[in-house]
């Protein structure tokens, strides 16, 4: 959202150019300070709008005349009025079309459904309003890497309030979400791998309509990206079991903000085990878990073994690119089996594992064949070199004998 609306209380305006406000406010101390450098970065300023867009007044007049009540000067905007003020332009499709036809205009209505919006409506002005997330006076487009709502910066922006225990006191919600998110696989994808499509706070909670996903909608949220896992989960017995127990689907095993990269060990019985937190050792589910884990471990080992043999053949200069390519298919089968685990059906998981094992076995054989071919070539080289050496020695002896005979004659 381009949050901060630029419209005067008395009417919308655009393409205003003269702006004497900065002459004084550029020289004032904070919080009244707004410099030319700061305001020139603002998307609204770049579109030709001035301070009067929000604050009213007449920026073409000098000194205090610019801030006369008769010119509609409003002064500082109260926090409680900010969403409505922004919404006067940003909810007006006809007005916004002239600046950005692709921009949505439902931000205000979404905000009103959010926890922030509902609390604001009840008079709680501590909650986030448009300017808290988007900034004020240097408000940038979300696609600008310096924007507070640029994907890489969203978590930090939310954390400004949500990680501040003293500020959040009284709301009875945790303040460790940001710390947990920083350890998560989603954070790694976003920050370390610079994958801007990776999830951040707003991906799961929504942005203008920010609210925690309810127990029933957690699966829907995760399935936006993890489509196949969700399809498998639909087939599982866990779905009904979790629903009847009032448990929030995916989060039960994977947690929420601190979701880490899942390993096969979660199916095990060690310190990372998850299944056994609910299931009883020796029951049918425990047996199924053990079988699925054995299948995954077996395929993983088979792939590693084939990789090793193919790698040795490759480093010996053998052409094994086809086997290398097939190994990727075996790895795909392993990934697929790990996804199928969400169905918790042994037969389905086994199908993927058997497919992967078959490919890994073929690749192992291809690697062995390449090594056998390498040895065959080296043996052939040995024989050829012996033959060449004998021929060279024979030639040498022949030349010597020939030249001795010539010398005698």
């Amino acid at each position, binding site marked *: 959202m381009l949050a901060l609306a630029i419209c005067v209380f008395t009417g919308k305006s655009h393409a205003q150019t003269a702006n004497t406000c900065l002459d004084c406010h550029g020289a004032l101390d904070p919080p009244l300070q707004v410099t030319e450098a700061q305001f020139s970065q603002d998307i609204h300023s770049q579109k030709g709008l001035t301070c009067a867009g929000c604050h009213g007044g007449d920026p073409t007049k000098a000194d205090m005349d610019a801030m006369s009540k008769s010119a509609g000067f409003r002064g500082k905007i109260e926090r409680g009025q900010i969403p409505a003020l922004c919404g006067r332009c940003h909810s007006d499709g006809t007005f916004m079309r002239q600046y950005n036809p692709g921009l949505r205009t439902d931000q205000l209505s979404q905000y009103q459904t959010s926890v922030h919006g509902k609390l604001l409506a009840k008079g709680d002005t501590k909650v986030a309003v448009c300017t808290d997330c988007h900034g004020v006076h240097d408000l940038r487009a979300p696609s600008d890497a310096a924007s507070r709502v640029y994907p890489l910066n969203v978590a930090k922006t939310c954390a400004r309030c949500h990680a501040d225990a003293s500020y959040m006191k009284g709301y009875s919600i945790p303040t460790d979400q940001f710390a947990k998110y920083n350890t998560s696989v989603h954070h790694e994808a976003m920050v370390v791998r610079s994958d801007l499509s990776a999830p951040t706070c707003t991906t799961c909670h929504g942005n203008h309509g920010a609210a925690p996903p309810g127990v029933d909608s957690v699966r829907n949220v995760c399935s936006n990206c993890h489509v196949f896992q969700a399809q498998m989960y639909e087939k599982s017995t866990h779905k009904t079991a979790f629903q009847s127990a009032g448990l929030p689907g995916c989060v039960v095993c994977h947690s929420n903000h601190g979701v880490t990269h899942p390993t096969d060990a979660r199916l095990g019985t060690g310190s990372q085990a998850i299944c056994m937190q609910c299931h009883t050792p020796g029951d049918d589910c425990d047996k199924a878990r053990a079988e699925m884990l054995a299948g995954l471990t077996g395929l993983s080992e088979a792939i590693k073994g084939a990789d090793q043999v193919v790698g040795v053949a490759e480093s010996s200069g053998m*052409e094994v690119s086809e086997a290398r390519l097939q190994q990727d298919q075996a790895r795909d089968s392993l990934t697929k089996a790990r996804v199928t685990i969400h169905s918790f059906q042994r037969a389905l998981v086994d199908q993927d594992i058997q497919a992967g094992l078959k490919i890994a076995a073929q690749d192992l054989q291809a690697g062995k064949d390449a090594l056998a071919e390498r040895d065959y*070539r080296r043996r052939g*080289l040995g024989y050829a070199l012996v033959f*060449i050496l004998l*021929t060279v020695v024979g030639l040498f002896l022949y*030349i010597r004998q*020939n030249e001795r005979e010539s010398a005698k004659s």
Partner: protein
Amino acid sequence: MRLVSKVRGWLDERFGWAELIAPLREKSVPIHKLSYWYFLGGITLFLFGIQVFTGILLLLYYRPSANEAFESVQYIMTRVRFGWLVRSIHSWAANLMILTAIAHMFSVLFLRAYRKPRELTWVSGMILLFLVLGFGFSGYLLPWNTLAFFATKVGTEITAQVPLVGHELMILLRGGEEVTGATLTRFFGFHVALLPGLTTLMILLHLALVQRFGMSVPPRVEAQWKADPSKAREMKFFPNFLLREMMAWYIALGVLGALAAISPWELGTKADPFGAAPAGIRPEWYFMFMFQTLKVIPSKIWRVDGEVLGILVFGLAGAVWVLLPFLEGKREKRGPRMLLGAGVFALCYIVAMTVYGYVAK
């Protein structure tokens, strides 16, 4: 042996065989402490023969199109019986041939074998060296792998810097503005038709000149022999020298076989013209000294573009090198010393810039 005599008699009766090979029987090779340098030309010729033979075998399977070239070489390497051996020998022999051709050129230069009356032998040899480098450049692209594709792109881009005709030259090489399947087809044509034809003609001329003027004796040895003719020694070309040459060929064959079996020539990954160029793109080792020079040369020297100046200097140096025997002049000592100095400088420069090219990041 009776059969051989019969065949010889049959040929002699019809074509005057004995008369035809008489010059070979009479040909002799001087014997002195530097005689072993005479083998280099023969080894280069032997390697050219290997190239022709293995090249013909590769042609049975190779397909010169952007869609099929890589796959056909992969097929040769993995499915064709002994295809790996033929392709690896072809690639290794190409590199060894360039190495022996360069060594042959420098040996001729340092032994002053180019001097009168062998000036044209030198010129034909230099043309052969350029043709061999042309074989290397055109053949490098044929497997259509990533490294070859981008190295050719860089190499042909450099030709575009040649003043006046650079752009046209690049279009001639590439068959268009970019390196595409058209470039591959064109390079294939150069590699299997144009260059072999020219090279065969030039080899015949070179050999005819060698046969006509005989082997050169280094000036210092020649002076010693003139002072004391009893010291002059020589051996018959046939069979004495030829048998020794054959020993060298066998050893070269062994080296080739060992390289092919222990380190088969890599295929790499298929070229993707729309993909990003991999890091560390560089040409084959025999072009490295030129590539590295153009890389380190300042972008502007006085008011001239550095790269253009570098290409002009290399072009001029190449032309001067071809005409080297004519530059010695009639000055008894100063001329040869000057050429010897130029030769040492060129050799040191080529080695130093090649090593620098490989170690520089």
